[in-house]
């Protein structure tokens, strides 16, 4: 994990989460803003996967359990796409709220992943 990248991911995910929940509760149906923000969160997670694969080879080793880290990362990477798929199935306001909830869950998971990588002892 790279600190600035973690901060960026959490910031984007929290912003996406809050925005989606707010516009969803106010009646907005899935659109460019909601689906787009989730797509961005997904892209960042894919980049995080690449970073996590490369990192140990350039001297950035995790202090915590690699198994636990990858379980979190794989789980997190499933969430945005699940939300986007659901938005196409159920095109109402609640699927926008769902996308917001999933984005917030991703934010929490990215934070946990950073803790596992940099602080937690395996």
């Amino acid at each position, binding site marked *: 994990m790279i600190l600035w990248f973690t901060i960026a991911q959490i910031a984007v995910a929290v912003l996406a989460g809050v925005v989606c929940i707010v516009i969803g509760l106010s009646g907005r149906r899935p659109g460019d803003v909601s689906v787009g923000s989730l797509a961005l969160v997904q892209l960042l997670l894919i980049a995080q996967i690449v970073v996590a694969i490369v990192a140990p080879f350039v001297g950035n080793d995790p202090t915590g*359990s690699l*198994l*636990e880290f990858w*379980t*979190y990362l794989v*789980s997190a990477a*499933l*969430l945005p796409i*699940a*939300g986007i798929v*659901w938005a196409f199935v*159920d*095109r*109402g306001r*609640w*699927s926008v*709220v*769902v996308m917001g*909830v*999933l984005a917030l*869950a991703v934010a929490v998971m990215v934070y946990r992943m950073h803790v596992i990588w940099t602080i937690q002892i395996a």
Partner: protein
Amino acid sequence: MSDTRPSRRITGIGTVLTFVYGVMALAATGRSFVQIASRFEQAPIPYLLSAAAAVVYLLATVALLLSKSPAWYRVAWVAVLFELVGVLMIGTLSWAVPDVFHADQTVWSLYGQGYVWIPLVLPFVGIWYLTTQRARVRELAR
């Protein structure tokens, strides 16, 4: 684009609830998998309870998703009640006999403290939701 037939798929706030259950199912499954795969002997009973929690969350997610069907509606009730009993029981045990739960936390340890007490609130929201759906399910069963 709206269908006049009553849909078997859940809609509205039920979808949010189902997705929250889904995320908890994912979290609980991931956590118990890591615990059992890497250090089962350290705390076998808590880790098995952790796995049981994952199963309950998975079942609740699926059942809620299909809860417009009367059969799945009943399964959803069972799962949610199981969840309530589980979080209260394990929450109390992890607090009363901490030496059994000495290792890292399970989803229901200390009433779900590690998950901002979402595991404690969730069954009550589930019960509320299922209660509001009772009349609708009865209609569909006719």
